């Protein structure tokens, strides 16, 4: 089992003809994900050439793509100016999950898009996220397929390459994953730690969870309380940005300590107080989760 995506995922790629969109669609198809459609306004009727001779039909709009192919998941690779519009379109089209990879989407646009999606009952992952991968089943987004492997660990993270690092170490230690989810580095994200923790708790194949947080906001603190109150499975964590200065944005739009709020210190404290073992460095995660599983 896995969370959010699996063998039944039928993916439509919004912005399939763009540089990033086409590159990652190839990677996604290589991994074996069922990419059923692409959308680029004005290119409807054309065809995307997959890696092994497969072809993917391109549509002008999401409603057509969903009606023709039964797509249930979309991934967004369109530029920032149009990304919130693409989320709105996807949420209006009938897919159940929208994964927004685009970085640099205006936050005010996303505030509207998130409430729209909530009203429609559609899950949004991101924006500014690497997407997610359920090893051996499906990959949606830009996480590299070659570093993951099937196994009992659920992984959720606000970061991209830090996720690679952690997955790489887990896989190296023989700890495969049910699903690895990058929830994104933006201030307003559609799916947060708690949503993922809830799903991992409900997923029978997930035996333990690795949670990678970073400075900014209080999502980790709330997640910690959730773990304590609602999780039976062990959770271990890491917080990036212990050395980050206050008031400065550390790459991610959401990675900023505001005043005295959102520090790594308070997040690590919240983890520890709620029974989440905290790794001092990424390399320690493996040992902690192994201990927790035993």
């Amino acid at each position: 089992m896995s969370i959010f995506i699996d063998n039944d995922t039928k993916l439509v790629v919004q912005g399939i003809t763009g540089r990033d969109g086409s590159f990652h669609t190839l990677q996604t198809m290589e991994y074996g994900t069922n990419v059923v459609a692409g959308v680029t306004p004005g290119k409807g009727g054309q065809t995307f050439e997959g890696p092994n001779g497969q072809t993917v039909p391109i549509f002008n709009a999401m409603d057509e793509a969903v009606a023709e192919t039964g797509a249930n998941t979309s991934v967004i690779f369109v530029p920032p100016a149009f990304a919130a519009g693409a989320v709105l379109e996807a949420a209006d089209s009938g897919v159940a999950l929208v994964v927004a990879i685009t970085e640099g989407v205006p936050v005010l646009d996303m505030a509207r898009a998130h409430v729209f999606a909530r009203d429609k009952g559609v899950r949004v992952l991101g924006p500014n996220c690497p997407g997610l991968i359920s090893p051996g089943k499906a990959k949606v987004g830009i996480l590299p397929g070659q570093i993951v492997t099937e196994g009992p660990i659920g992984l959720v993270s606000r970061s991209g390459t830090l996720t690679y690092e952690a997955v790489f170490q887990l896989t190296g230690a023989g700890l495969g994953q049910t699903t690895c989810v990058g929830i994104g580095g933006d201030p307003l994200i559609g799916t947060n730690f708690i949503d993922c923790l809830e799903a991992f708790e409900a997923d029978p194949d997930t035996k333990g969870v690795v949670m990678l947080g970073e400075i900014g906001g209080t999502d980790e603190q709330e997640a910690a309380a959730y773990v304590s109150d609602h999780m039976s499975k062990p959770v271990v964590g890491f917080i990036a940005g212990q050395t980050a200065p206050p008031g400065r944005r550390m790459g991610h739009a959401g990675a900023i300590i505001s005043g005295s709020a959102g520090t790594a210190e308070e997040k690590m404290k919240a983890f520890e107080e709620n029974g989440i073992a905290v790794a001092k460095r990424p390399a320690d995660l493996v040992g902690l989760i192994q201990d927790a599983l035993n």
Partner: protein
Amino acid sequence: MDIHEYQAKERFRAAGIDVPPGEIATTPEEAETIAAGYGGTVVVKAQVHSGGRGKAGGVRLAKDAAEAKEHATAILGMDIKGLTVEKVLVTPAEDIDTEAYVGVLMDRKKQAATFMVSAEGGVDIEHVAHETPELIRKLTVDPRYGILPHQAFWLANFLYDDPKLIKQASKIIAQLYDAFVNSGASMAEINPLITTSAGEVKAIDAKMSIDDSELFRRPDVEAMRDTSSEPASEVKAREAGLSYVKLDGDVGCCVNGAGLAMATMDLVKYYGGEPANFLDIGGSSNPDKVVAALEIITSDPNVKAILFNIFGGITRCDDVARGIVEATNRIDIGPPIVIRLTGTNEELALEILSDAGFSAYTSMDAVVEKAVELAAGGA
């Protein structure tokens, strides 16, 4: 992006908020002339992207033009938390009866703009929120409707008892929301919002942060960027499309991905070193970006060692390795460089790097430990 008080005030005025007049001086003489124009007591205020300028002596009352010149002389060139004051705002002193706080910022949890108001203004609102949360009223704005009239009234009603003041403050709150939205802000704040003995409500201070992701479509706001208030290295990094924050340590860091970059800094600290910077080089193997990153890192004289931590991910590691080698061939670097590269084709990549004379690693811990050792003077 932070903007200066005087710039935030321009945005507030454009939204209709009653903001007292004010002009910018870059020399003591200009300050004197402006003060003479207003007549009477003025305030001379340092324009700098930093809190605590009051405590630092960056805000002074001047009873006449001569004193305004004097204060401007003292404030211009002053260092406030590492930033040099290049401009002062000269503004007539107001007859202050009460001081309140009104602010709006993007609330992550509510996924919407949220107002915070308090009758306790002119002080650190975070302190008020922590010590006496009952003195703060909060309201989340539904982005589909904007702030509704009764909501603005509800906030204003928490600040004042006098219906005339409530009416003015309700209007200002609605206008502040307009300014927030129309500027693409992530935070906008009036502290203090004053009442005068004549019964007027005015914004005598103004603070605003802009969502960087809005700037591409708001050239009028982008034009407010004051590069003179930023370290030159950060300006250069932004122009090169790199995410860079200067710090005080001696281990230069060049990492792909923000989360991994922070974790790398943290690991430098873990091994007893101090990171010289945050730098996210992104996912590309383009030598131009590596060149820009190295130029920026080495422009910091504190840097004693440079550490690359690259997780190849989807990009092939050998491509990245070639990019690094080409970049380092193009420019002359003083401090030693150590490189960690892992992911697809890492063996090939390490070969390329070793052939070019670099210390090459696959373990993050090993490379960081080595970099710290090099910076401390080891070999």
